[in-house]
């Protein structure tokens, strides 16, 4: 029997959908080991956010109100305390930038090993086997951890968001544990990106642009109309982010976001290994590129050899027509 603690991810007082991927993982492990899972919600507005997670089937929800912006060192000691006093075998969160930052801190405080960014778990008796992508998704490694408590972050594209299971989990408050190191870290500001478009990691359709778009303005005037015609999220290659055409949170790849939409349209992206790592799990991949030898062809289902400045506006028009004819 393994009990699991899910660490919810809050943003401005609301639980992000990433939390529900960790719940799916927790349900799998709980079901197969005969254990239960709890959710810990920590941060500013934790109490309020907890009420929205009460129908996920957790045995209980633990809340810790910590005011101010996110500083991992202000959360980790409390979570570590909860893990240790609650007798959990696994502590998990989504492998978002939040989970990847916070959970190894928790692990260090309780001497737990970390299985990062796992895509699947197999339970055999009391052993949990984790499979995770490595080498930019070119190798899958299967690993175990030899520590009594295991810390796991899960890949959002591989663990679908959990649906509510009904019920009403009881909510308990937990004491906040302070850390000396936190006094040396001052939160200044978090400029939260707001977009009317679907979230990149959750969208059914993603349209990404590369450096060939040549400017921030062209992202707006050329690419965005296609993004919106498709009801898509917008992504970008590292080169486009580095050049400042779009902000870094739109980067798709080994070190950016990993996406697996039904349709991925790569516009003017050559397809470096690091980019492919972030999108090759997509169901249908379209490349629009002048160079038919571009490495994106290795993964593309459809390849339109064309100048993007001609093809993209035309595609916007065609998609709009198609959608209108419904």
């Amino acid at each position: 029997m393994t009990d699991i603690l899910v660490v919810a991810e809050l943003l401005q007082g609301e639980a992000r959908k990433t939390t529900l991927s960790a719940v799916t993982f927790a349900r799998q492990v709980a079901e197969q080991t005969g254990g239960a899972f709890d959710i810990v919600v920590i941060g500013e507005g934790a109490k309020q956010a907890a009420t929205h997670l009460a129908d996920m089937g957790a045995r209980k929800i633990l809340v810790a109100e910590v005011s101010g912006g996110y500083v991992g060192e202000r959360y980790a000691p409390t979570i570590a305390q909860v893990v240790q006093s609650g007798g959990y075998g696994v502590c998990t969160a989504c492998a978002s930038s939040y989970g990847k930052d916070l959970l190894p801190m928790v692990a260090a405080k309780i001497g737990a090993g970390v299985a990062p960014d796992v895509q699947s778990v197999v339970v055999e008796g009391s052993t949990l086997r984790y499979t995770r992508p490595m080498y930019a998704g070119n190798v899958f490694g299967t690993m175990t951890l030899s520590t009594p408590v295991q810390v796991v972050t899960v890949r959002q594209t591989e663990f679908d968001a959990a649906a509510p299971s009904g019920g009403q989990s009881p909510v308990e408050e937990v004491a906040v544990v302070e850390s000396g190191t936190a006094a040396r870290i001052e939160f200044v500001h978090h400029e939260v990106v707001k977009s009317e478009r679907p979230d990149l990691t959750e969208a059914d359709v993603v349209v990404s642009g590369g450096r060939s778009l040549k400017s921030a303005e062209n992202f707006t005037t050329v690419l965005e109309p296609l993004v919106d015609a498709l009801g898509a999220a917008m992504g970008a290659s590292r080169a486009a982010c580095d050049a400042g055409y779009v902000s870094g949170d739109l980067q798709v790849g080994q070190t950016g976001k990993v996406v697996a939409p039904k349709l991925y349209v790569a516009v003017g992206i050559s397809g470096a290994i690091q980019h492919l790592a972030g999108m090759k799990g997509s169901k249908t991949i379209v490349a629009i590129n002048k160079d038919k030898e571009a490495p994106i062809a290795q993964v593309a289902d459809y390849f339109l050899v064309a100048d993007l400045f001609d093809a993209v506006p035309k595609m916007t028009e065609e998609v709009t027509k198609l959608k209108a004819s419904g």
Partner: protein
Amino acid sequence: MKIVVPVKRVADPDNANKVNISSDSARVTSEGLEWKMNPFDEWSLEAALRLTEDAGGKKRVGEVVVVSIGPEDTTQTLRQGLAMGAERGVLVEGSDEALDSQSVAQILAAVVKKESPDLVLLGKQTVDGDSNVAGTLLAELLEWPLCNYASTITTADGGKTLTVERELDTGLATLKITGPAVITTSDRILQPEAIKNGVTAPDFKYPESDAGRYASLKGIMAAKKKPIEKLTIADLGVETTVVHHYESFALPPARSGSTTFVESVEDLVQRLSTEARVL
């Protein structure tokens, strides 16, 4: 300002699709691939060099120590760091197989305590393991403030205070930390104005680049004379514990189907609608 930069050697990341699996599935093999400095560590080294130089006067104003763990020929990776401009190297002898993020963090913590720098700068992940863990464990072992995913660093008080912008999934966050500290970097740390050290003119712009600086011929010659201290794990008095155990490896399944080259936008949209059924 004194900065320690841990650097790992990795199989050439631009050919990561050429790594293979041993016949017993127990090992990843990278025969035929060159060893390269982990790109994220290289970018951190570039940031460390920028923090410790007067870029306008091309003068060093601090010290950068590159550290690696590995067999003897890992010195080549350290020499590359020295050729880029780091002052000294430290090699801790170890075999790649006997290490995991836990033991790496334990060894690095011992080296850092010995060196007592103002800052440790390293990549947020290595491109082979893709774990994103060692830097965080290191900060926790040292009980130093941690800032993951730095895209800009501005120092004050000679490097004692650092204002860091962090690139998150949800946008940019800013932290102000009192050193000594551990910082891991994101891709954007290489941008022309990402580093402000109070010495280089504030309006100085580095050239746009997606990698660390090239070693000049002069730098390569100078690196041959720079010291590399060699230590064993026993010298550091560390008892390492390996807790992450990889049992087997596999190559991912190839994407099914082949690429259809389409002639026109009309044809593409038609196929996406009727053939792929995604529109």
